[in-house]
């Protein structure tokens, strides 16, 4: 690890700014206006669920609401509607808590289920690339934009929600916050406390898309072509 040419480069910038270079002591000011904190202020979880559900439509994502007891049936239905075949998911304690293994028992015998296993290395990526469906839990969910936030780690590779044709996010209702403002604040606070942020944090709002050909919306480009968000009442 190395840093090259930093001093010449930054000294020049400071000189252009007409002052000595600063490497410490700059404090981020309190911004004069802060409209980001006003959005959906004081709303309860139910109101946020409504906003979230509406926004799902805008981003071409199917929205299903259920509770823990019925999650199994709902998930089986969604998986079947995507044609089953092969599924990849992270190694996540929530898999058991939410009864995923049970649900997979309901699927056809020949459905391939792969739980991310770092000990087999890049093979995980290959499996993800071939998989028909990726399933993850959302760590923080943004109502305004219908966004799931994923903190990746050795048990949860980015590939899972990226490479398969279809993506299913399971969203515990308690993960719902108004907007990205709250997610950013949570991450910022952790950094201030000295925690390391995940090597990859992804904010995912629906399937991949593009407007690069004559400005027509094409859903499904490099990432998933279809997405379903399942909100689970706890």
């Amino acid at each position, binding site marked *: *690890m*190395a*840093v090259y*040419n*930093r001093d*010449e*480069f*930054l000294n*020049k*910038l400071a000189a*252009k*700014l007409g002052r000595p270079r600063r*490497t410490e002591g*700059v404090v*981020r*000011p309190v*911004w*004069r206006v802060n*409209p*980001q904190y006003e959005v959906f202020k004081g709303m309860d979880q139910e109101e946020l669920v409504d906003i979230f559900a509406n926004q799902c439509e805008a*981003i071409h994502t199917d929205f299903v609401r259920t509770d823990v007891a019925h999650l199994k049936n709902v998930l089986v239905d969604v998986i079947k509607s995507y044609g089953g075949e092969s599924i990849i998911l992270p190694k996540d304690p929530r898999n058991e808590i939410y009864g995923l293994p049970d649900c997979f028992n309901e699927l056809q015998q020949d459905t391939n289920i792969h739980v*991310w296993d*770092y000990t087999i*290395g*890049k093979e*995980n*990526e290959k499996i993800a*690339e071939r998989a028909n469906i990726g399933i993850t839990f959302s760590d923080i969910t943004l109502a305004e*934009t219908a*966004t799931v936030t994923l903190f*990746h*780690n*050795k048990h949860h*590779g*980015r*590939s899972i929600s*990226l*490479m398969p044709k279809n993506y299913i996010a399971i969203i515990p209702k308690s993960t719902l916050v108004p907007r*990205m403002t709250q997610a*950013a*604040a949570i991450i910022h606070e952790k*950094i201030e406390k000295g925690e390391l*942020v995940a*090597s*990859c*944090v*992804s904010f995912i*709002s*629906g*399937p991949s*898309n*593009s*407007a*690069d*050909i004559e*400005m*027509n919306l*094409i859903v499904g*480009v*490099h990432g998933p072509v279809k997405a379903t968000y399942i909100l689970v009442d706890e």
Partner: protein
Amino acid sequence: MSLKLEDIPFEEGVQKGIENDFMRQAVSGAQGRFRAGRLKQAQELGNWEDWRKLGEEIRTHTVNHIDFYLHQLSEQVEKRGGHVYFAETAEEANSYIKQVIQTKNAKKIVKSKSMVTEEIGLNDALAETGTEVVESDLGEWILQLEGDHPSHIVTPALHKNKEQIRKTFAQKRGYTGSSEPEELAAFARKQLRSDFLQADVGITGCNFAIAESGTITLVTNEGNADMVWTVPDTLITVMGMERIVPTWEEMEVLVGLLTRSAVGQKLTSYITAYTGCREEDEIDGPNDYHLVIVDNGRSNALGTEFQAALHCIRCGSCINVCPVYRHIGGHAYNSVYPGPIGAVLTPVLDGYDDHKDLPYASSLCGACTEACPVRIPLHEMLVLHRQKIVENGDTPFAEKMMMKGVGMWGGSPFVYKMSTKLAHSALKPWTKDETIENGPGPLKAWTAVRNLAAPPKQSFRSWFENRKKDGEN
């Protein structure tokens, strides 16, 4: 390193643009949709002016302390296992990147859309290494197959129609399908998947670097940048030095301004924030990470009246409202950065010599300034550029023409002259029943009081022809 795309005079580029009917229609359609999308999102969010003020304040503070934040960023990236290379020039950046690629003995590189790599001419530099470079953004991939340049900073292949794209796919990649956008995209997905999986090195740009944690944020809809981050073991990020924010909280604010302004979306499908190398036992992400921070003339703006040009978040809103861009298209600017921001930024980065006509590619109507989510006074900066160009004794073609009495932009009252002399169609989006309501920029104040009669239908084409004739003697 010149930012010029082609070695042709400004006049010629403009003429080409005007003659390209498909392009002009595509541009005006896109402008309308982008503009409508932005306004809808701004309205839904409410108090948009407060958001713009916040954006401006964040950008002003950050650029004022850019040495501090870049220092912090580099410390954090290093802590997370990455290398940081500060490049004063395009050549320095390119040769560092080439060196990394040669050390890796790379055969294939996948790239995600990045303006700064266009600016420094990275692809040409990489061609010298014999490595295959694949652009993975759908629009950029189309252009790469054709050997063409982007014409818009958000939708680079705006000037191509689907039939042209079908033909290119057929000729270059043996595509046999229809010109339906879905089918074209599905074909591109397949082709690019195999490129991603084989790539040894990935190269991305950077929307916002977060100083507090050494994080790079990428904003996309297609998911290509995520593929570029995920698969190859070696990753290089190239960022313009000003693309930085203090913390995640400012990133969040600016990303929201960017996605709303750029594409009329609350957020794009993917906002991905990655930091240094993958952790132990992680499979996805690079194990060799390089951040290249590029000056390439940006520091010319620091401490000058053009400093705020570095506040730009590359949303393209100014382009989407510009009546001149509407008529001449992106290529006419003959710069990596088209439209009002291009006319402001290009001479700052690259000097006036090659670009002294650019500050004249504007009607000074002020629509750009009003659209800018971080409140950069674009049209004022264009005036400043013109003053400087004239002070230098360097009178470009356009200025000569103006002095000959076309009087397009000079004299007073400026606003009325603009509205009568500038092409009728330039004002079209705001014209309703031949009176102007809610005109752009300075016109707005006027129309708020009374509706102006629409200017006579003098086309941009005829204006341009006159201008040319005048310029010749």
